[in-house]
């Protein structure tokens, strides 16, 4: 892999590239699900290829290829240069990539390699969980246990001397349980995932995930829809994580800044909310789904304190955004695969905990909503708006948690939200997910404590 990478970079330099980098990748995927005791959608895959990127006078050319024959690699590298040259007259601002080169290798710590566990053994766990789902309660009418794993070997080489080898291993389990009573049908979803080996999927963890999913589906059978309006809202750690990700994480991705469309423009270093608010993205925490030691450009990554004591502190950078903005590269470049070019992304994003007790916060809130779970979300940072969805929640009446409510949509504006957050609890949990941006999907985690947000718009029926 290293030889192929050097070959591509040399060919690009010879053809006139100012800068070139290449990601040579070998990935093995396996996924399968058990749906009402029938295994379905079994898939194994071997993905091999190289993504060659070149820069000529400020113009990028990017050509991926799955053919790693030396002659093809050289030809594709030259084609990338030709592509960049063909557009260089349409580039307004020439920039140069500046970086501290790295030569290293890093491997996800693994106790039980995913490749060493047979398909039969993985299937047995899913089937057992699927069977147990229907035994939990007679109202459960459908269950789906879905497992996927990705094992990647990645060589990152660039023309300035970076030469980094990464070994990544990411298993993920999602359990869907649907329950029905009279005319009410509800679904629960729970996830288990990090980076590591099959030890992450031990039976106790998987069983707890099943129970979380089934309990949610059953509890929601008695849920009512919430009346739309403006409420004081306490988000649970899962939904706090979605808020951290959608409302702030994406807005801190520096490609929005280079393009000059972010609503946070001109506010780096400025106060956006209460001093108790700290939002970080940290890919260096071992064992999480969004963890990596070096990013996909071979930059050593680190914890990024995006919002520190209420101030917008730093951004998520690639080599390009850091060079263009003349700031330190924070190692946030990621790619879904060799087919894509690196762009700034989050890893593990979270609100740091505060000091409130959850029950005290509910009591203090008196009237409002507790909103919970990962129902999805999206943002448009040029518009400065975001929306995210809860899977369920509870009314707060007279300072107590009461009636369970169904999922709903919460919307807000980036600039207005941080000033509405006035309390963070001392609990903490991260949950696993997948983030989509520019057609690229990458594994990540998000989380935090229970937090309170005043006067949020909550959609209703």
């Amino acid at each position, binding site marked *: 892999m290293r030889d192929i990478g050097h070959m591509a970079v040399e060919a690009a330099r010879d053809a006139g590239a100012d800068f070139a980098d290449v990601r040579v990748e070998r990935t093995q995927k396996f996924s399968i699900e058990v*749906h009402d005791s029938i295994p379905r959608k079994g898939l194994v895959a071997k993905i091999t290829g190289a993504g060659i990127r070149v820069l000529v006078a400020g113009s990028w050319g990017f050509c991926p290829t799955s053919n790693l024959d030396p002659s093809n690699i050289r030809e594709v590298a030259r084609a990338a240069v030709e592509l960049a040259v063909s557009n260089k007259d349409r580039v307004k*601002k020439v920039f140069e990539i500046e970086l501290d080169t790295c030569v290293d290798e890093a491997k996800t710590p693994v106790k039980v390699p995913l490749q060493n566990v047979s398909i039969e053994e993985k299937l047995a766990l899913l089937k057992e969980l699927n069977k147990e789902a229907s035994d939990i309660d007679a109202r459960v009418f459908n269950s789906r246990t879905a497992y996927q794993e990705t094992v990647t070997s990645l060589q990152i080489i660039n023309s300035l001397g970076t030469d980094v080898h990464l070994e990544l291993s990411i298993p993920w389990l999602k359990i869907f349980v649907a329950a029905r009573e009279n005319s009410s049908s509800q679904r629960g979803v729970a996830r288990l995932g990090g980076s590591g080996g099959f030890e992450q999927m031990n039976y106790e963890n998987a069983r707890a995930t099943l129970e979380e999913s089934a309990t949610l589906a059953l509890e929601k059978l008695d849920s009512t829809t919430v009346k739309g309006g403006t409420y004081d809202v306490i988000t649970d750690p899962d939904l706090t994580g979605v808020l951290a990700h959608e409302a702030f994480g994406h807005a801190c991705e520096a490609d929005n800044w280079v393009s000059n469309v972010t609503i946070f423009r001109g506010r780096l270093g400025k106060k956006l909310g209460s001093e108790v608010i700290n939002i970080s993205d940290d890919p260096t925490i071992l064992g999480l789904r969004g963890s990596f030691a070096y990013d996909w450009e071979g930059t050593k990554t680190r914890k990024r304190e995006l919002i520190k004591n209420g101030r917008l502190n730093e951004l998520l950078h690639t080599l390009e955004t850091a060079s263009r903005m003349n700031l330190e590269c924070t190692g946030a470049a990621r790619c879904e695969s060799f087919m894509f070019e690196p762009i700034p992304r989050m890893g593990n994003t979270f609100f740091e905990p505060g000091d409130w007790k959850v029950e005290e916060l509910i009591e203090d809130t008196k009237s409002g909503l507790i909103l919970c779970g990962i129902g999805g979300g999206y943002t448009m940072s040029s518009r400065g708006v975001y929306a995210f969805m809860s899977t369920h929640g509870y009314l707060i009446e007279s300072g107590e948690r009461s009636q369970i409510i169904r999922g709903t949509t919460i919307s807000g504006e980036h600039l207005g939200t941080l000033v509405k957050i006035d309390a963070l609890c001392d609990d903490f949990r991260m949950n696993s997910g997948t983030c989509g941006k520019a057609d690229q999907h990458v594994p990540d985690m998000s989380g935090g404590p229970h937090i309170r947000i005043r006067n949020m718009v909550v959609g209703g029926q």
Partner: protein
Amino acid sequence: MKETLFEIGERLLRSADRKNISQTEVYLESLQRRKLTVEGGSVKTAKRINDQGVGIRTAIGSQLGFAYTTSLAFSDCQDVLEQSATLARVNDEDPLFVEFPTSVTSYPRVSGIYDKRLTNLKSEEISTLLFRAVESNQNHLRAGEVIIYGDLVVTTKSIAVLNSNAVQTFNERTQIMLEIDSTLRTDDQQLTSYESQCGTRLADVDPEWVGQTAAENTLRMIHPKPVENKRMPLVLSPRTLESLFGMGFTSAVNAENYLTGQSYLNGLLESDVASEDLVIVDDGSLEGGYNSSPFDGEGSPSSQTEILEGGILKSLLHSSYTANASGSTNTGNAVRDSYSALPSVGRTNLQIKPGKGTLEDLLSEMSEGIYCQLSLDQPNSLTGEINALIMEGFYIKDGKIQHPVRNTTFGINMCDLLNRIVRIGDDTRMMEGFLSPSVLIESVVVTSD
């Protein structure tokens, strides 16, 4: 390309036969995609992607396996065949599986889905097309600081499907997609909107129209305000209906979901579920349709399926698997994004059939209401509930647009929405596999800041 893909496929089927694999399906794809991105009047990235690969499904009895690789080298393809068969051997039996599709005498003739001018576009021509849209946008946004983002994607895709039941078919398609996002910054606010156009032929895209419309959409977003929380009528644009129906209705009539009780229309097949004016058809053989092809992702003929007519839910969307499992007719809706995906039930070109009247006619019917131009939300596929953020929308009074709405949502259950459609316009536009005019909903719950 056809001969090359068929040769690989035939060799793999012969190889599978020697390995005593009961049934084999080979899906081969070769794709070329060019993408150019422009930001702030400057080229941001140029990409040329050549993506080739094979996905192989095998059945040993009724034990199923699937494997794929990003290569068409025969030795890699043989490895994939072996991996697929290995997975099938260790898998349990699938009692619902009967067989992969069997050969057919003919496929529908589908016109307007390949344009060699798209395949032959030079990178300079791609750049010129995109910059025409950027300049048109710029020309219509003169006041204030303007930031324009644009991208143009041109794809040529060759697909061959062969199976051991004598299916052997090939198709070549082209697609083009042009999008302009513009942001206008004035002293006190930042306005953003976009426009896009897609198609299968070069002539389907009008760069000047895309640029100008994106600019007009942006200018209309000035001075948004919240509105009163109450029930109001709502006009949904084709773009909003793409999320609500293209995604959120398709999932409800997807036989995979319906047959496992995972649809908000559960148990309502052949029942009255909607306003009688609403006619919804899925048509994989539509002339010039973005997702049109003579065959679906497992080589079954594409067809026109009447899903909803006269308010009655007449048909679900089926693949060979769901059709065989439920004793229904296969509608040719096994959808595959690429060789890396298993076929699953999905839409080809979902159409809401037009009624009568322009957007202005629909708006004029509201004494007070909301026009939702853009929302990205989808309903819960099990309960049908939706609370959607109106990303771009306007408050309407006495049939006229008053102002854009700010931080506003609408809420309704899809089962109610289907019944509350009181008027369907004739301003049909084509998006990615979805064609629809604007639609007027009698009432929804509107919640605002």
